């Protein structure tokens, strides 16, 4: 038992110092070969992508590192496949033995012990000991030698598993850092809207990265606003969100109409996104000279216009979301609203489809909220609405975004 422990201990100590399974094996394999009185030893790693076994470590008269054997070929391939320990007393008489390897290396394989290296049934590779010096008719690899070799194979499996786990943790850490960074970038892209514009907005992301967004741009006497919701979630959705925001700013900066902005954004997104992603959008242009609000609803659901009298109406979607249909199939309708005593409640489905006591609130719920908060300032009304979700009075499983517009508050 002490020999087994010594060899595995050497392997683990070298692995702990170098962090390299192969360096550790290079240190331990000669001791195993020496202890078992063999001429050579080798380890073949199973390269799953190439479906080949590749020699990564060896000891003996010939350096065979880098030699590749297809899965299922040779004795090593057979052991890798069957995951069964094999002792071959005469390599010459085993049909699976690959003589070409011996011929090219000049090494003559007489007998060999091959052990699978596995972790929880998952194939990692195979360990071989070759040419133990014994007389004819004597079992070349008695049980105590097999036990020592098995101990190193187990240590090797543990080392590979540990290395794989470490790699996974590193990748996960990198991914977490990327998501955090993307969240920071997203926060930076979410603007703070000056109070004098008569607009307030807020986002409550469901996960770290939101697929919802809003933005505004003040160009002379016009103020352009967008609220959007990208299909899907996560990093991919946040990249599409950033793309949509850049497109909005580009076309708004050119002073285009809402209809034209929506049409051009649709063309760009339809070309770039493919069918797997789309963006619902409500685009608004507030003209302070003409005292008119024009808007386009591209698949964004219903938008509530609540008059100070308590009457309400809805701005319906007039086209599919951006990015789904191309060319002349995309025909949004631009609506015109004269400045007046009303508020426009633009919400994403994280709010309109939120649930109260198990029932979706829908636009009836939105009207109740809008009426309840109609005497509050715009930021207070936005905050109060999002607090209904924060305080779990409303349950939602999506990002929740609200843009609130009141032309009476414009200065």
């Amino acid at each position, binding site marked *: 038992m002490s020999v087994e422990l010594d060899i595995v201990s050497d392997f683990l100590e070298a692995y702990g110092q170098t962090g390299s399974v192969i360096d550790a094996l290079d240190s331990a394999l000669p001791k195993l070969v020496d202890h078992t009185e063999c001429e050579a030893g080798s380890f073949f790693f199973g390269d799953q992508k190439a479906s080949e076994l590749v020699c990564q470590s060896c000891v003996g008269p010939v350096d065979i590192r880098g030699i590749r054997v297809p899965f299922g070929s040779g004795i090593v391939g057979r052991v890798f496949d069957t995951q069964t320990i094999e002792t071959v007393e005469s390599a010459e008489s085993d049909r699976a033995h690959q003589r070409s390897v011996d011929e090219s290396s000049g090494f003559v394989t007489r007998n060999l012990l091959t052990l699978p290296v596995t972790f929880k049934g998952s194939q990692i590779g195979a360990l071989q000991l070759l040419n133990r010096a014994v007389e004819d008719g004597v079992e070349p690899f008695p049980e105590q030698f097999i036990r020592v070799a098995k101990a190193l194979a187990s240590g090797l499996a543990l080392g590979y598993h540990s290395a794989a786990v470490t790699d996974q943790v590193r990748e996960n850490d990198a991914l977490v850092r990327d998501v955090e960074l993307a969240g920071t970038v997203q926060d930076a892209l979410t603007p703070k809207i000056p109070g004098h514009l008569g607009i307030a907005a807020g986002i409550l992301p469901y996960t770290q990265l939101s697929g919802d967004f809003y933005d505004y741009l003040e160009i002379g006497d016009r103020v352009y606003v967008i609220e959007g919701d990208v299909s899907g979630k996560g990093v991919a959705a946040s990249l599409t969100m950033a793309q949509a925001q850049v497109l909005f700013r580009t076309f708004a900066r050119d002073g285009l109409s809402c209809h034209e902005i929506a049409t051009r954004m649709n063309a760009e997104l339809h070309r770039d996104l493919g069918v797997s992603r789309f963006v619902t959008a409500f685009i608004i242009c507030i003209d302070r000279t003409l005292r008119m609000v024009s808007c386009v609803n591209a698949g964004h659901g219903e938008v509530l216009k609540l008059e100070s009298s308590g009457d309400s109406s809805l701005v319906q979607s007039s086209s599919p979301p951006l990015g789904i249909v191309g060319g002349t199939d995309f025909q949004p309708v631009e609506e015109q609203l004269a400045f007046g005593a009303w508020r426009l409640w633009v919400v994403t489905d994280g709010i309109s489809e939120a649930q*109260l006591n198990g029932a979706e609130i829908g636009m009836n*719920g939105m009207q109740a909220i809008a009426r309840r908060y109609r005497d509050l300032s715009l930021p207070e009304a936005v905050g109060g609405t999002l607090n209904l979700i924060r305080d779990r009075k409303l349950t939602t499983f999506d990002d929740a975004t609200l843009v609130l517009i009141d032309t009476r508050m414009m200065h």
Partner: protein
Amino acid sequence: MSNTVEVSGQTAQIKLSGSVDINTTGDLRNAIQAVPTSVKSFLIDASDVSYIDSSGIAVMLLAKQVAERSSAAFAISAVSPMVMKVLELAKLDQVFKIQSVSSSDDQRPASGSSTDFSDLF
């Protein structure tokens, strides 16, 4: 409830059930993309869908695109009222050919029309 794609002869039947969202559509997307190009007809049955989000809509659009690529026919044989509402709100009824709307919609959360919203405040 599960979402399935079954190919029988030259027809691919896509059955959507329960909640069709980002958590349930990953394998479905792969299955739709793996439908052989020899298929001449894609049929989606969404009559048992209790909830659908934008990822679910994207899957329906993907099936339509895969059908168009192989010049196959595409139709939605039935949708639940919940799915129909989502499609109408987003004006996607302009994009999809829908054959019928099912009458049963038991799994859908009840409409808010009769809810007492005073509970909220």
